[in-house]
């Protein structure tokens, strides 16, 4: 069974470094806002609309989504950061889902 837990490889570690930087490092948007953008929960109003699309239907993002977020008071640099956090957050969840499925398949093989 000890083989079933896969060691974090160099690539996963490099992505984790990116995740940690965009959420917890220095930025114009607050770490709390960036954490909400990353997890795609606890967002409100225009930000929820824009960042929800970034996470789930990025091809549907429009100029109007950005205009609404600006009108709600977010600066260009804040939106730069929050959009990145939303994209990286969704991708990190996909990464973890894929690695969990692999660990499950490998555990099944070794049990059988």
């Amino acid at each position: 069974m000890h083989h079933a837990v896969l060691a974090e490889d160099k690539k996963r570690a490099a992505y984790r470094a990116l995740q940690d930087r965009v959420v917890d490092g220095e930025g114009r948007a607050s770490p709390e806002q960036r954490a909400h953008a990353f997890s795609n929960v606890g967002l409100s109003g225009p930000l929820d609309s824009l960042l929800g699309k970034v996470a789930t239907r990025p091809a549907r993002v429009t100029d109007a989504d950005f205009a609404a977020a600006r009108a709600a008071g977010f600066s260009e640099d804040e939106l730069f950061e929050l959009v990145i956090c939303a994209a990286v957050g969704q991708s990190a969840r996909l990464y973890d889902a894929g690695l969990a499925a692999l660990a499950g398949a490998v555990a099944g093989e070794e049990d059988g």
Partner: protein
Amino acid sequence: MRLEVLNRGYGPGTKLLFAVIRLVSRHPVPDAAKLVFYRPDFYGARAKEFTHEAMRGPSAWSVGDRELMAAYVSQANECAFCIGAHTATARQAYQDGPKVTAVLADLDSAPIEEPLRATLRMLGKLTAEGKLGAEDMRQVLSAGVSRQQVQDALAVCVAFNTTDRLADAFGFEVLSPEGFEAGAKYLLKRGYR
């Protein structure tokens, strides 16, 4: 791009570099390149490192296979910029345009090896549905794909789920076919760093 800082917010050194790129390539600087030069300490530096490792680092998958995965994932996300960029790069890497076209048109009938086909199917499902089960992964392993190859393919998938989202959200301008060919040549020569 939809944020003016991504169009104009660069210092003199970066502007000079963009001018050199335009001069040498005889094409506009792709928005994908501009993005990683804007406040690179926030996103670009680490994103480039991860993407280069995923796309050009050690792997049993060839560069062509990984570029094809990037194109396939981008198709699942309907990301026009990244489909254009990575179909061009996969075609050049394989020296085989019809194979790339066939995979994007119909994965089941495309003339590729079963391990690659099973892996692309899994990446497409993960991207489209956002989840994956152990059974999905068992099918990939039983097609002859190693665990390390699965991990390597997931890294490619994640790199392009990230880039696709940013391309669509920030509104990357789709290049001309010649622009994509020039970009592909650069990516095969220099990678993503």
